[in-house]
């Protein structure tokens, strides 16, 4: 049973908001939800149990402390990236695997065990991959040809491919086991034997799980993550894929055991284009975009909507994030406020922009209309309804994903249908009830006043100055968000405010922690979190700097043996 790692009682005691509610219609709600809980704010609201040890002394941080990391399986994206890097497989074989399990915003596969079906799916996909791989280039795969394709060559393949697939050299027992498998079937040809080795390795627990088993000194509960295990942590954090041979070599020489060695490999990985996969996965999940764009939009209102535009929207956000984080200034402020994009023509046309890209690929946008990720079509479409915008969902996405606020579920029997589109009113006017009705206002004061700031964008992210002939009012207010709190006019101003908000910085730091380590931050990670905050601040909030600090932190370099 996963442990209760965030002490809700402690945190909720810090904040009390009037979040009482009444049923839409008549009777009183019998089970009023608990008060909203702010876990990501700064200032008075943001202080949580993750702060440094009592007294704030960093001396207690001299001895590494780290929370337990449960055993995880590869996510579908990690599976695809890994077989691409190992076999050159460019399809999406993981579409044949079970869906990923999500922890908070991110896929991690850390809780529920595999089932008969998922084991069979692993087997089916591995069988197909192995057949294709040997059919397409056996000689290249095994590194020998003709008469040299014998049991010795097969063993060399077991060692070489096994090292890539298991992210460590296979043990002698394992080599013997796989050589045995080869020999059992090589009577039907060298190719058959190799195919079965491949087929088995691609469903081996050493392949599908992120295994970290190297014991530490006797009795120690916090032990260093070993070189090869660290290489895998690093490459899955920064590439969302398996280590390459150079990283495995560095692990083998012990170079990763020193912070400097680890950091220089991390810098190399971040420079590689393969880091794009991790940056893409992070942003799609952090911004709540994955799976949210598959739905249908009302075709009468949005004839342009379709799979092609959806892909182009996703592409814009992913390309933009990668451009800023890895090739641009790397700063969170830029991600959330840049008046430029790297979108393709379909999205530019939605934005009403026809300018040609600059030599670096960027296209300038009207700085009064667009500012970074939150004013991009993907975010605006994902957090909207099929036939209208949603101030609630857009506000909620900002609160949850950017401010790390945990809100209670709406009361059981509240009518949470958005008001019908009304040709004589704006969306803002239709949602007035949330603010005027005291029973809704308790919670919705934290959402709608943010969400209405996005009213200048329709349900697929096109800019608009009027709705139903009425002028858009995009003034809003950010409440309980530390130094960023206050009124604003329009999403551009909101985005600029959020881009330098300490609450957002703290939240983004947590989100990257959760994504990179595949778990929540726990009490024992307080020293790591403190150091991350300092390093993030020292770099003027450069995400690259945050990542380098994260992958060299105690939470990354050590593991706890027992929960």
């Amino acid at each position: 049973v996963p442990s209760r790692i965030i002490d809700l009682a402690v945190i909720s005691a810090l904040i009390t908001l009037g979040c009482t509610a009444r049923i839409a219609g008549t009777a009183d709600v019998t089970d009023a939800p608990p008060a909203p809980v702010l876990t990501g704010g700064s200032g008075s609201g943001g202080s949580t149990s993750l702060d440094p040890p009592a007294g704030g002394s960093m001396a207690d941080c001299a001895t590494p402390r780290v929370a337990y990391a449960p055993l995880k399986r590869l996510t579908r994206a990690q599976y695809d990236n890994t077989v691409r890097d190992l076999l050159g497989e460019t399809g999406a074989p993981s579409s044949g695997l079970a869906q990923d399990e999500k922890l908070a915003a991110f896929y991690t596969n850390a809780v529920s065990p595999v089932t008969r079906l998922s084991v069979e799916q692993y087997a089916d996909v591995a069988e197909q991959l192995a057949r294709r791989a040997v059919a397409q280039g056996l000689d290249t795969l095994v590194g020998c040809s003709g008469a040299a394709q014998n049991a010795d060559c097969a063993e060399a393949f077991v060692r070489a491919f096994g090292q890539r697939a298991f992210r460590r050299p296979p043990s002698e027992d394992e080599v013997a086991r796989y050589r045995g498998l080869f020999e059992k079937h090589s009577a039907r040809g060298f190719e058959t034997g190799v195919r079965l080795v491949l087929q088995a390795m691609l469903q081996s627990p050493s392949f599908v799980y992120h295994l970290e088993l190297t014991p530490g000194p006797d009795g120690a509960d916090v032990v260093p993550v070993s070189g090869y295990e660290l290489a895998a942590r690093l490459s899955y954090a920064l590439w969302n894929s398996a280590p390459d041979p150079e990283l495995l070599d560095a692990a083998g020489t012990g170079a990763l055991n020193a912070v400097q060695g680890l950091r220089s490999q991390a810098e190399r990985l971040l420079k590689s284009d393969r880091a794009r996969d991790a940056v893409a996965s992070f942003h799609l999940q952090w911004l709540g975009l994955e799976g949210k764009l598959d739905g249908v939009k009302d075709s009468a209102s949005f004839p342009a909507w379709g799979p092609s535009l959806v892909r182009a929207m996703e592409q814009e956000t992913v390309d933009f994030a990668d451009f800023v984080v890895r090739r641009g200034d790397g700063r969170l402020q830029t991600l959330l406020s840049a008046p430029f994009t790297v979108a393709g023509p379909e999205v530019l046309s939605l934005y009403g922009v026809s300018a040609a890209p600059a030599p670096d690929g960027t296209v300038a946008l009207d700085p009064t209309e667009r500012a970074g990720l939150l004013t991009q079509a993907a975010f605006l479409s994902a957090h909207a309804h099929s036939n209208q915008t949603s101030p609630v969902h857009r506000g909620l996405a900002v609160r949850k994903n950017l401010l790390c606020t945990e809100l209670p579920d709406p009361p059981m029997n509240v009518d949470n249908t958005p008001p019908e589109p009304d040709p004589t009113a704006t969306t803002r006017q239709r949602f007035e009830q949330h603010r005027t009705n005291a029973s809704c206002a308790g919670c919705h004061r934290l959402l709608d006043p943010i969400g209405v700031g996005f009213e200048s964008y329709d349900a697929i992210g096109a800019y608009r100055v009027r709705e139903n002939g009425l002028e858009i009012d995009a003034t809003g207010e950010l409440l309980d968000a530390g130094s960023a709190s206050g009124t604003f006019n329009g999403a551009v101003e909101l985005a600029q405010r959020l881009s330098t908000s300490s609450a957002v910085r703290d939240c983004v730091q947590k989100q990257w922690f959760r994504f990179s380590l595949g778990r929540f931050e726990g009490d024992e990670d307080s020293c790591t979190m403190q150091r991350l905050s300092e390093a993030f601040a020292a770099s003027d909030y450069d995400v690259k700097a945050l990542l380098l600090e994260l992958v060299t932190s105690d939470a990354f370099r050590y593991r706890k043996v027992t929960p």
Partner: protein
Amino acid sequence: LRALGRLASNRRFGRRQLLTGLGVSTALAPMLPLLEAEGQEARPLRLILWFTPHGTVYDNWKPSGGQTDFTLGPILKPLERHRAKLNILDGLKIQADGVGAPHTKGPPLLWTASPLNDDMTFTRADGSGGMYYGWNSAPSLDQVILGQLDPGTPYKSLEFGVRSGGNHPGSRMIYTGAETPLAPETNPWAAFKRLIGDIGKTGEELEQLRAERRSVLDVLDGELVALQSKIGSADKRKIDAHLSAVREIETRLQNSSIACEGPVLGSEVDANLSSNTPVVMDAMISLMASSLACGLSHFASMQYRVGENDGGYLYDWLGLTTLEHHLLTHEPDSNAAARQDLSTIYAWYSEMFAKFLDGLDAVPEGNGTMLDNSIVVWGSELGKGNSHSFDKVPFVVAGGAGGQLPTGRYLQYAGVEHNRLLVSIAKLMGLAELEKFGATDSKSGGLTGFV
């Protein structure tokens, strides 16, 4: 269901003709009870759990009239042809204890009658609301029965789903135990290949394939056993579960060699695209009925969509193109147009359920059909969307449980907990001693007047 019709018409010649290409006869032991089912005894009972989301529009669902002289309302009307084999259960409620929003905890509660774990693993899949909860705390009805009785079929149970959501508590209804959900097959074409697809290979090819798979499983078995002693105690259950899954597959490969004329599914379409739902649903229904007819399992479930708001889900094939279904359910009762649209959707649910029953009813068995030897339970995660009420949850049970269960009835209850129905089903399936089901159960015994 053209293919099933074809399959069914063959049934005049007995099941044996259908199960062709069976390899050596000693490998057939687990299949024998089924093969001999032409006789009077040893006819297997099947249990099928069927889920559709968001309750119903009660007034349009409720039949009128008495226990046997009832008239189906507009929502259940498509089931008219199966009327004589139904039990329509009105007035059952789900005791929705525990953490989680109604749409989240509803599907896991439906067949487990037990709450989600009160831990901090998940927030809502649809991104709304933020309270945490874990996986469900107890096994579902079918798995509890399977824990007591081994039907000896190649698969203990088969889970099917159409747009059944991510790996998240709000989208999983079948559990083998606490925190161990069973994910459904969601792509009928991939599932077909896995379940029935080895047909067409010669005996030698098939033997070769199975020998290869057994060797690979052998390696995995060895690796997992080695891991068991190295892995920390907190994660050992994951390795244990992996090993028992490997062993289950190994056993199946050793014992059974099933080949069976499967359904003709039609061309594959993108199962993720909501507008393809009717095509995917048809294929899944055919596959599911065939799998049962072929004796792959006696336990199956269908999970159509999820309890949560699965966003942007329009029934465009029914002409409903503006408000997504979930939001439609939140419309107030006074919105007559919304109630009409919802009734259209729920009548479509009935049509899908009726098609599946067609499949079972087309397979002769003994003096009746496979449907007569089945219990097919159709339920939802709540009664009504806009109030999230767990009262008046629409339950329909089809099939006669091998002659144990009178059918053709409309049974009215006044707010009886659905635990009673689950107990009755467990008893019908052979768990005579079971009197309580689920952590929410505070009473005992089966559903009065049902069996």
